């Protein structure tokens, strides 16, 4: 009879356990069968009603029942845990083809992007960045740069003059003058910035434009160093396959003066609309710093020599991004700017 009673308890526990859905149910079952006021505990309390002889056998059976119940509950617990883990691991309710959350960035202006790229290239070569004012006097813009009094670039048609007697710098070479005034050689600088020339806006001109000027003054600087630097720049900016050349030109503040061309980035030198079938694109003005300029700055031109170059940022941006008209750069159309959001700088 006792055996039946115990068997029934086990049977009932099995049924109860089948109903279990979560950890809480398990706790309830445990309380019901094994807790303080549980079925098993009440069985133990029957012990004292039994005779000495009956006790061991009964006790043993209850112990077995308790162990059996313990095992069943633990088994169920494991099963539930496994279910949860499996469910967690196998959930597939998302449509992974829907786009994710993303806060779209804006974009820097291509002129800023190119300026930064140029700065990085020259900084990697040991140049420092120096900046100066847009509003300049004639001395820094012309006199100190060996530009004669009657030079046509001093005309109103070329240079903007201000009502207080100053002018807007026509090139950032003015910064070179200011640096040479303040620091002895060796000097390795670039000066990026705004320049102004009284040109009517057209596809390749703008009254306000941007330049990166470079200046090196040191012992033993030759035109070969200038060529190396410009070539390094061209390849860093347009790729290792780009060819470059320098050819004679004229600037008042350099002697000899040169212009630098690169092989056309569009047709690789075969000849096309962009390079006007020449195969070459003009990239920079350059030359060896004129001894007069050095002398005016109080630098011994027998001991030191130097080179200078100027590169238009608009020009580089147009060539690099295939922008046909300079005026596009000043429209500030966000549809244009959006195209540059992935540029790395």
């Amino acid at each position: 009879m006792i055996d039946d009673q115990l068997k029934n308890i086990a049977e009932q526990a099995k049924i109860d356990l089948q109903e279990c859905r979560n950890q809480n149910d398990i706790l309830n079952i445990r309380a019901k069968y094994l807790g303080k006021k549980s079925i098993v505990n009440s069985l133990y309390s029957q012990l004292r009603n039994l005779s000495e002889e009956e006790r061991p056998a009964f006790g043993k059976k209850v112990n077995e029942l308790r162990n059996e119940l313990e095992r069943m509950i633990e088994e169920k617990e494991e099963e539930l845990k496994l279910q949860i883990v499996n469910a967690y691991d196998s959930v597939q309710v998302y449509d992974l083809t829907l786009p994710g959350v993303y806060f779209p960035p804006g974009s820097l202006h291509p002129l800023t992007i190119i300026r930064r790229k140029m700065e990085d290239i020259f900084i990697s070569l040991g140049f420092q960045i120096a900046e100066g004012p847009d509003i300049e006097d004639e001395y820094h813009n012309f006199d100190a740069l060996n530009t004669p009094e009657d030079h046509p670039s001093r005309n109103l048609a070329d240079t903007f003059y201000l009502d207080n007697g100053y002018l807007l710098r026509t090139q950032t070479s003015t910064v070179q003058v200011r640096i040479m005034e303040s620091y002895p050689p060796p000097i390795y600088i670039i000066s990026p910035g705004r320049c102004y020339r009284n040109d009517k806006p057209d596809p390749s001109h703008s009254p306000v434009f941007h330049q990166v000027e470079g200046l090196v003054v040191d012992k033993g600087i030759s035109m070969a160093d200038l060529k190396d630097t410009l070539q390094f720049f061209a390849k860093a900016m347009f790729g290792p396959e780009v060819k470059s050349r320098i050819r004679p030109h004229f600037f008042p503040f350099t002697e000899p003066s040169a212009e630098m061309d690169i092989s056309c980035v569009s047709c690789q030198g075969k000849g096309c609309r962009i390079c006007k079938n020449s195969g070459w694109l003009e990239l920079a003005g350059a030359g060896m710093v004129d001894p007069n300029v050095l002398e005016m700055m109080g630098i011994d031109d027998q001991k030191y020599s130097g080179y200078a170059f100027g590169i238009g940022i608009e020009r580089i941006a147009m060539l690099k991004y295939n922008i046909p008209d300079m005026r596009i750069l000043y429209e500030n159309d966000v549809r244009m700017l959006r195209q540059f959001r992935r540029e790395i700088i």
Partner: protein
Amino acid sequence: MIISARWLSKYIDLPETFEELVQTLTFTGIEVEAIKEIPALPETVVTARILTSEKIPGTEHLQICMVDFGKGPLQVVCGAPNCHSGLITVFAQVGSKLPEMEIKKTTIHSVESEGMLCSEKELGISDNHSGIIELPPETPIGISINEIFELPDSIIELEITPNRPDLLGYIGIARDLAASLNKRLKLPSLRNYPGEEDPSIKLTLLLQEPQKCPRYTARIIDGISIKESPLWLKIALIKSGLRPINNIVDITNYVMLETGQPLHAFDYHKLLPINQENSHPAIIVRRAKAAEEFIALDGNLYHLDEEDLVIADGQRPSALAGIIGGKDTAISNQTTTIVLESANFSPSTIRKSSLRHKISTDSSYRFERHLSPAHLEKVSNRALELILKVVGGRVCNELYDTYPEPQKPLYLSVRPSRFEELIGYELDAFLIKNYLQSLGFQYILCGLWQKEPINEYELLPQAISLDLEKNDNQIFYENPQMALYFQIPPYRVDITREADIIEELARLDGFDKIPQKKIIHPIMDWHAHHIKHRIEDYFRQSGFYEMINPSFIDPIKLEYLGEDKAELEKKLIRIVNPQSSNQSSMRTTLLPQLMDNLLYNLNHSERNLKLMELGKLYWKDGNKNCETLHLTALMTGLNTLDHWKVKNEPIDIYSVKGVVEGLLDQLGITIDEMKKVQHPWLVEADNLAYFSKGNLCASFGKMRVKTAEKFNIDIITLKQDIWVLDFEINTLIELTRTYKTVFSPLPKFPAVIRDISFLINLSIPYSDIVKSIQQVEPYLIKDVNIFDEYRGKSIPDGLRSISLHIILQDYEKTLTEERVEQVIDSVIKMLENTWQIKMR
């Protein structure tokens, strides 16, 4: 390598001060790792004899001693295990100040003690505290201990770079110092010891591995008795970090420290012969046999293999070559005849065996670094001389010397012109000669440079006669290939090329002589450069498009903004020859051009726009032209989050405020004042300006309908606010110039976050609430953050509901629940009293 300045001074006159010595060592290229000065001991610390010693009953070690120190005798209690009557030791009288204590008259176990018998540790000489110092019996009594221990002294720990094994001995270090200080190197004078031919005491020496052991010398000395070393020898070893063992072993160690060359001594009579026909004790330099067993001096059993090189006798290994000696053939108190080994082993053999068997000794450390075999006989003679002097005995036979392939001479040439090219200044040829000669290089001739080293005298080029002392250096620059030829001393195994010689010259002449050639002035303002990038990138990342507009502006547009005409006139810079009237002056603000950009883009169907420009403004201040960097931004439309699930919210005052405060936070600018902006183009209510230390940093506000109208934008029909943001870039650059990140130690105890919600009067600003809460417990309340604000239906008029996270943290200990409750309770009480809040 640990050296004593006193010992070093045997070989060279040291500089006046210890600081100078350290300085010279450092700039000669011998790095000083640690310095320990052993000060002179008081004159009251003297030698003394223990007359009687008697155990104190009921104690384990304590003894009552009567001590004679020239005066006395005095009664002293001593606990050292080696304390016994007759011993001569060191006695510190009452009143002596020792490095770690002052000696006082005391009573121990009711016995009076008038002074102390000292261990090495108590005198600060070493860390040895195993017993009191034992001085030799012939030591006079009552003399100052400074004399005996050569005090004061300085112990210098040097880091010897692996390329300089020649510096692993006192003489090598002294040689470098001598060259650097232009002083004479004092070497111990040596004589030859031919030895008496003794057919009964002979050695069979077989060198089977000349690759692994290029040279092996052995010397037999008979008639010695093994004892403790004399005091001077023991003291010398102790100061250099070695433990004295016995007279023979101590001498081999002393000579190793002196010359850098490890030596080993075998007990001649324990070396077994090869067989009966060849019955002399044998030394065979051979590879170990596979699984050959060897019990070393350290008592361990090693299983050798064929890669190990052993010094064996006729039967078994008696040393693991160059690493450790064997137990069976070691010097013992019974030893009367020794074999003194002075040998050379290949570095790779030693390194491999040392690694494989995990044994590193002073000997293996030196052999691993490549020693020269050239002067082994001299080192052997030096040890012999010391043995004869200290121990006595008799030299048997000639030096056994097996040197199958003697090291060839090495000649290298160095060009003075190359020194100038590499180091940057001219060094006179005669100085080059002097420096190198003081390092032990031998000057041979002056001739044309040759890159390859020369190993035979006959192959040297023809000498060009030249008087180097005449100091005419010009010839070396007229012909840059003119070079000086030197024979390299064999112990300088690191010198193999011209560049190595030039390094020696540069370091001896001093790196401080290297001139500063190009002074590159710092021109660039890196800080401004980086801050500008940070700002540009911040706006790009926040969804803004950068505009670039010309510097020219139409003055009429400034009037559109409502600026005062007379004020404008004062600051406006006009262009004499403008291309058109709408480009006739320099811009004093970026706003009009940005309004034009906004209109342009609105007209091209872009509704949600964030535009910014970072550029210069230009104005005059009397006769002065001013240019400052400024950033203006416009925001209108929706905050576009590219998401199909989340609705795009209109740009409101808090998203604009977030852009401003986000940048200020990223730049680390502390805002100490906020107030309304008085711009005629901004709506009066919804605007704010931020100040730091009195400087305007940034401001934002909502554009007036009327102003927008002037720029052809109809805000009412557009149904979008236009927000204007302004940043004073120059100010931001200057305010951040001194910003420094300093790591602060991470809190060891976790922070606790508590949330509170309450109703509060609408007129009370959030910032005031936060400030008042932080003041309740400034040390514990680390942060207060709002996570919800609600006004509306269920909230009574004139009130709002505020929900806050209060973050508490104690850097010293874990916060208890009670303490947290206590703080939160006082916060609530304060809020109730100050603002009449109602908790929710």
